[in-house]
């Protein structure tokens, strides 16, 4: 394997990734042992490391720099912005992603990827043996979702600043999908999850050749509306909510059957007159139960 000469191009980053690339020059990361060095001119490089979103002004420059890189012309996109525009998705000044402008060989997610991750990704290419670095316990790595705990409530989907979490209902199944390429590692999903189902995994090495592969997901069975039979919310979510209601207010326990029945009706059927009447009378009884107490 020939030595890798890496040229870093900032196409509109916040500086974070660039600082970490400079940081990777520190002795402890053993960039030389990984079979690589940093160079200052694209003409002397055979690896192009792109950081940041591609702004409209940098797009043409990115193409020019790519032309100058020597074979084997390996392109590494580092950081959420270079992978997917991250938190800046939807900006008027970001016409394309890096891999829509030039072809990309490897993706290093992170916001920013730490030098451990960057050097680790390089060592993957050169097959160099480097120590496996371990982050501290509270490290904000990729969000991993616990299938057992997730109820598919979508609180994380609503909160995610980068739109990295999607909900797809297909057939009788709901998939909650975390895209690590879009993730900005802020841990807001972990913070808002009512079920404690999300944990930011403490590991550095998450580089991949295909950015669509770096995901984590939870699958849930959707419940059928007891009235019309349409699929609406995950059965686990219904179960969790009714459990919580009955746990929180002891007086409601006598109404378990009625509560579960009314919750099993989808949002469309709830507006039907007979169902609305039933719900109203249930609410009345529940109020009475608390008042007596």
């Amino acid at each position, binding site marked *: 394997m020939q030595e890798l000469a890496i040229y870093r*191009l*900032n*196409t*509109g*980053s*916040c*500086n*974070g*990734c*660039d*600082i*970490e690339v*400079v*940081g990777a*020059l*520190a*002795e*402890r990361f053993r960039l030389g042992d990984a079979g690589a060095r940093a160079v*200052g*001119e*694209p003409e002397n490089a055979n690896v192009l490391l792109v950081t*940041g*979103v591609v*702004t409209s*002004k*940098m797009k043409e*420059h990115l193409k020019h*720099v790519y032309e100058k890189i020597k074979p084997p012309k390996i392109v590494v996109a580092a950081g959420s912005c270079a992978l997917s525009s*991250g*938190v*800046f998705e*939807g*900006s*008027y*000044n*970001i016409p394309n992603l890096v891999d829509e402008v030039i072809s990309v060989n490897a993706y290093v997610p992170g*916001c*920013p990827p*730490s030098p451990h991750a960057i050097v680790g990704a390089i060592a993957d290419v050169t097959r160099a043996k480097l120590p496996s670095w371990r*982050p*501290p316990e*509270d*490290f*904000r790595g990729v969000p991993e979702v616990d299938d057992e705990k997730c109820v598919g409530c979508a609180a994380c989907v609503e*909160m*995610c*600043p*980068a739109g990295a979490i999607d909900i797809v209902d297909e057939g009788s199944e709901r998939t909650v999908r975390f895209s690590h390429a879009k993730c*900005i*590692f*802020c*841990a*807001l999903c972990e*913070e808002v999850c009512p079920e404690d189902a999300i944990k*930011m995994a403490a590991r550095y090495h998450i580089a991949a050749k295909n950015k669509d592969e770096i995901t984590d997901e939870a699958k849930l069975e959707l419940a059928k509306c007891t009235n019309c039979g349409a699929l609406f919310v995950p059965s686990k979510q219904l179960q969790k909510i009714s459990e919580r209601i009955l746990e929180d207010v002891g007086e409601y326990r006598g109404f378990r059957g009625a509560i579960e029945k009314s919750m099993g009706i989808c949002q469309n059927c709830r507006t039907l007159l007979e169902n609305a009447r039933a719900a109203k009378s249930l609410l009345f009884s529940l109020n009475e139960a608390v008042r007596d107490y």
Partner: protein
Amino acid sequence: MPKTITFGPYHSEFLEPEIYEVVVDGDKIIDVKIEQGYTHRGIEQLASTKTYRQGLFLCERICGLCSHAHSCCYCQAVEDAFGVEPPRRAEYIRAAVFEFERLQSHHIWLALLFRTLHDENQFAKLLNAREPLMDLIELICGNRVHYSVNAIGGVRRDLKPAVINRARQLLDGLEKLSTEVLEAIKTHAQRISGIGVLPRERAIPAGVVGPILRASGIASDIRKDDPYAAYDEVDFDVKVEDSCDVLGRALVRVKEIPESVSIIRQLFDRLPSGELRAEVGAPREGEGIGRVEAPRGELIYFVRSNGTNIPQRVKLRPPTYVNDHAVVEMLQGEKLDNFQLVLESLDRCLSCTNRVSIIDARTGSKRVVRVSDLG
């Protein structure tokens, strides 16, 4: 015969893309034109499409070196608009992380200055010495660059006693290192003194802030002038140099390292117990302003709320926006050899600075868009 040399947008010495068109006569710089906009990401517009809680992480990602300054300032502006007072413990943690950020930012700047001076030994030494500091930041915040410690109304992470003990040991080492760096800078004094001069009487009209202003003999520091977080409860000196040149800017930053160390020690000693976050409640109509002393100088945020959970307007004035333009004045009459050094002395961090400008295709004239132009 004057000629124009163009540096950028990408250049081996630049961390970020920008174009400098330098007009030279022989080896003397006559004028400099700056072209920005290469990292313009439309953040102010994006900020008025995201909720307050999401916007915090957007603003944090404006800059990788002042990330805590941006998020802290955004929180202060929102807290001001909503009338929220963060708990004291949260204010202490904010200030402590602020100083850790200043320390790592000054260390990387010093490292890059030595690289520009072709002093590879000092560059490597500072880069290696910065790593234990980065490890500590990673331990406190969970990430080396984007700290995500702040939340509107307080902080998200606590300072654990074990971390404080580890930090104290590290601080002793950093203090010792700063005296060695000071000596190292003095060995280069001849090279960097008297260049890139911005005289005291020109510093205020030029609008510069932070270490650049302090190196021009003016003691201006938001931590002292308009204390925020827990800065009203710590003692420290505002370091000032009156040489107004690159050497002065280097000395100000080196001398700020022991001050930051002392601030962190005081914060640790007096760290109050209690809650980490105050209740924020429903958004209400109003306006708020935040002001902090980022590692590069004064940073201001303005937030206007229309009572929804999405801000109507977020406006910021980052320090490099004003500092970058002063480089024209510093470079006029300077030798071309000194171009990189003067540029480096600013500690430019352009990711916060790039604005929209309109270029008239017929005349080639350029102007910045004002809100009033948009109607």
